[in-house]
């Protein structure tokens, strides 16, 4: 079902998720993707409009995830957005496998949104970005196929995953150079100090 669907990631979502991963280089990080489904005739496109970083420690613990899901869903409903996916960055540099924890959370989101996407940060591509030489998005896209397992798409060369703004990588590279990742706040940070806002308002001003 998801094979004919395209995924378009906005700059805001993309930059947020990479900065989040960079802020916590020695642990796994994850977060939710918010967006909407756009139908243009026969093609369906999932527009990923925003991302909310969730946690950077003890990702396997579920209570915080539950609370985050409830509050995030409610907040974004008012903007006409819903949870359309999940992103994950592995702890180890060369680990490009989608782990069990990520799959489980992905499964849960899939129940509400059958075209759910899981984006896994690709550290090799991110490394290239750091040297200013990357053109592709530094993430891998996984969708659920009919056999109920998460499969990487786009590996056969098809362009299912695109960045909405082609300058996204350049902007990201700028932010990396200026160490912008220090300012990003995730839901974990919020739970430790509720005055920190997981919506990250003003991050890109």
């Amino acid at each position: 079902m998801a094979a004919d669907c395209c995924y378009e990631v906005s700059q805001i979502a993309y930059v947020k998720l990479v900065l989040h991963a960079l802020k916590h280089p020695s642990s796994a990080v994850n977060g939710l993707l918010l967006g909407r489904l756009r139908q243009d005739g026969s093609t369906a496109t999932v527009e990923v409009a925003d991302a909310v970083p969730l946690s950077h420690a003890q990702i396997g613990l579920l209570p915080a995830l539950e609370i985050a899901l409830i509050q995030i869903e409610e907040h974004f409903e008012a903007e006409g957005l819903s949870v359309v996916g999940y992103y994950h960055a592995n702890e180890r540099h060369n680990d490009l496998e989608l782990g069990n924890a990520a799959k489980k959370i992905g499964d849960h989101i899939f129940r509400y949104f059958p075209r759910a996407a899981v984006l896994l940060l690709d550290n090799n591509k991110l490394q290239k970005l750091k040297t200013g030489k990357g053109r592709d998005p530094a993430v891998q896209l996984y969708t659920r196929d009919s056999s109920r397992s998460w499969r990487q798409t786009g590996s056969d060369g098809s362009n299912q995953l695109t960045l909405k703004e082609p300058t996204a990588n350049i902007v990201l590279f700028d932010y990396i150079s200026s160490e912008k990742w220090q300012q990003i706040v995730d839901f974990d940070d919020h739970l430790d100090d509720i005055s920190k806002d997981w919506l990250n308002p003003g991050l890109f001003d």
Partner: protein
Amino acid sequence: MVGAEEAARLDRLEIQVENGGGGAWEYLCLVRKLKPRRSDKVLKHGLAILNDPKARSNLGGEEWTLYEQVAFAAFDCQQHNVAKVFSLSLSLPLHIKSEKHLMDCVAVLSKEFPGSLRVGRLEGMLLEAENSWAEAEKVYARLLEDNPLDQIIYKRKVAIAKAQGDLKVAVDFLNKYLEIFMSDHDAWRELAEIYVSLQMYKQAAFCYEELLLSQPTVSLYHLAYAEANESQCIEYSGFIILLFLRFLLTAFIEQVLYTMGGLENLLTAKKYYASTITLSGGKNTRALYGICLCSAAISQLTKGRSKEEKESSDLPSLAAEALLRDYKYRAPKKLPLLNSMLKNMKLSS
């Protein structure tokens, strides 16, 4: 674990040193004591001191400790060349600055200082940083023969397993280590975290139980134990709360596998969230949320049972009130979200 006051002092010093206000040595000593992971800063300021001959000679004997600290920082920042230089310097009693000379000294040094455990460990870590796992393991095996009770080397072996992604092997090693060194709290915590990442919540809970027994006043362990218990229940029943908030009860009932096991876990979790709140003076946001989630889940699971078995305490509504109060003062923008969440859980009106 770092106390709040010392953490604040560390941050202040860091800002001061970053802005050129001096105090680098004090900062580095505090980092050594508190062990936060600030490798890029340590590397920068440590190198600055070491490259300045006057500052270096002021350190006297402490100079070698600094070399070691900077070497560790260099490993973390993947600056292998820096680390190479320093692990060699540590074995050298003289200040030889030429790199070529240093490289040549490797073989001579291993012959000259064969028994130095500390330097041996650094050499092992250098190999680790270069991803030469087999070589590193050989170095550690050799060191272990002469020093069979060296805790750090055992931990390096766990680190190697973890770095290669062999979590099951890491778990094995850690368990064997803990059989010998049962009172090593850091090791219990590390094991618990690995179990959590493998979603083995029951085993993680067991580790936290050990920690609770030996350090019953640390609120962090109470919280972690509660979360591990709650995760066990949530996993089994499939995200109870979200389902019942969004769908009709019928859909929810299909999903929930009601078992005594699930309820027991929730009750345990609630108890330990409560003890976390007591220990932390009511300030722990996660514990307050935890109580709300647990109570909502428990009342959902015990629906239809007789009244005596139902929970009857003020705890959930008190926790809800505490959260609302806190959000009102410190995060007013999020107050509406919290309000509606608690209303749905029937914990506030």
